[in-house]
């Protein structure tokens, strides 16, 4: 049940890339934060829905996955620098690993992240695909 609760708690960030922005220093965070680590008590954080567009900052090709991800291997996991500045880690879908390069433009897509076996809850959320 704890995985169900965790999946449910992550819905705003996983479905709609809900992050935070510090109105004091302008830094954008993902996932959401309660306090700005720079401005501390002077900081003021507000919700910011990120657009889901950015560039590949760096990536790795997973060739030896856990059993759960065996059917999609080899697959690419990248750190993506979003337009707003925050970085997110996500799978790059619908591509051959050879096609991916640092600096490639990507956009958010909505996919299955994982499922808890055949009778468990299905977690959905963001992944990214190449714009080219």
């Amino acid at each position, binding site marked *: 049940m704890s995985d169900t609760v965790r999946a449910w708690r992550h819905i705003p960030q996983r479905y*709609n890339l809900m992050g935070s922005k510090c109105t004091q220093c302008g830094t954008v965070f993902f996932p959401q934060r309660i306090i700005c680590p720079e401005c501390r008590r002077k900081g003021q954080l507000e919700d910011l829905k990120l657009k889901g567009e950015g560039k590949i900052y760096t990536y790795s090709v997973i060739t030896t996955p856990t059993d759960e991800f065996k059917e999609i291997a080899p697959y690419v996991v990248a750190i993506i620098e979003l337009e707003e500045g925050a970085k997110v880690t996500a799978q790059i879908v619908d591509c051959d690993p050879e096609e991916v390069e640092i600096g490639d433009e990507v956009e958010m897509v909505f996919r299955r992240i994982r499922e808890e076996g055949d009778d468990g809850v299905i977690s959905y959320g963001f992944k990214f695909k190449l714009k080219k």
Partner: protein
Amino acid sequence: MAGIVGYGVYVPSYRIKVEEIARVWGDDPKAISRGLVVTEKSVPAPDEDTATISVEAARNAMKRAIIDPKKIGAVYVGSESHPYAVKPTATIVAEAVDAAPELTAADMEFACKAGTAGMQACMGMVDSGMIEYGLAVGADTAQGAPGDALEYTASAGGAAYVIGNKDTIADIESTYSFTTDTPDFYRREGMPYPSHGGRFTGEPAYFKHVLSAAKGMFDKMGTNASDYDYAVFHQPNGKFYLKAAKKLGFNKEQVEYGLLTPVIGNTYSGATPLGLAAILDEAKAGDRILAVSYGSGAGSDAFSITVNDKIEEKQDLAPKVQDMIKNKRYVDYAVYAKFKDKIKMA
């Protein structure tokens, strides 16, 4: 009457060719292609299902609608491949387009016409003043048993429509439905693949309902085939579609834009909504469209639609059907079988 405020589509990028499926089962690929008028079909990635396809289509529809998502008062997702047996796909879509929580939502099920049933429900609620906007989605990741004729066409895709009566891009003049109890195609609880009546799915099922709904609409509106610039029908294969079009008096030019099954397969609940979207991608102000869905079991919903002058400013705000069709990568039967969970893993 209510109209279309925005529409959006999604087709997975993987494809498998009819000749690749035929190679595995020892069928003659040319005979299959010619018989069904299908050359290839879309295949969902392992992390795609009806919920993800519905969300992508709904987000594209919202790009064209340009409305505050919180003004959506109803979300209906029509499909016969909802990811959960109990737990609505519609709540996932409502949350992902940021329309939740002040709305009603439900999943629709009527074989391949659940998407158009959702559109009708939204029209009724908009026209009665219950809601300002409604979101109706038709999407499927269709199942065909390995080796069955359905495997050549059962594919994945979907389309979403934002229904309202303000700032429409196309106005729905009328809707007419024709429904009977006809067990031509069904899936019992717990069974992985549907069963169908072979030739029985033709005359007493598809043709009877599609033709009756179209003719019912002609009578209701005082129109005939020549009054429409475009027409689209449900398309389990290309052959049925073209035969229905001919019987109703439509020519090739009127029906070719809406025919997608030859290149993406039968997207079931997504089929008529996707075909209609392909027409809206090309339509101009004043164009008149007849759309007729079909769901086994059995019934058809017909819509008589007139496009208005707002269409052109919305057409390029989201990917078009042809963009989705062109974006493709082929898989062989082994990869297809893996993607579709047809391989038993240790």
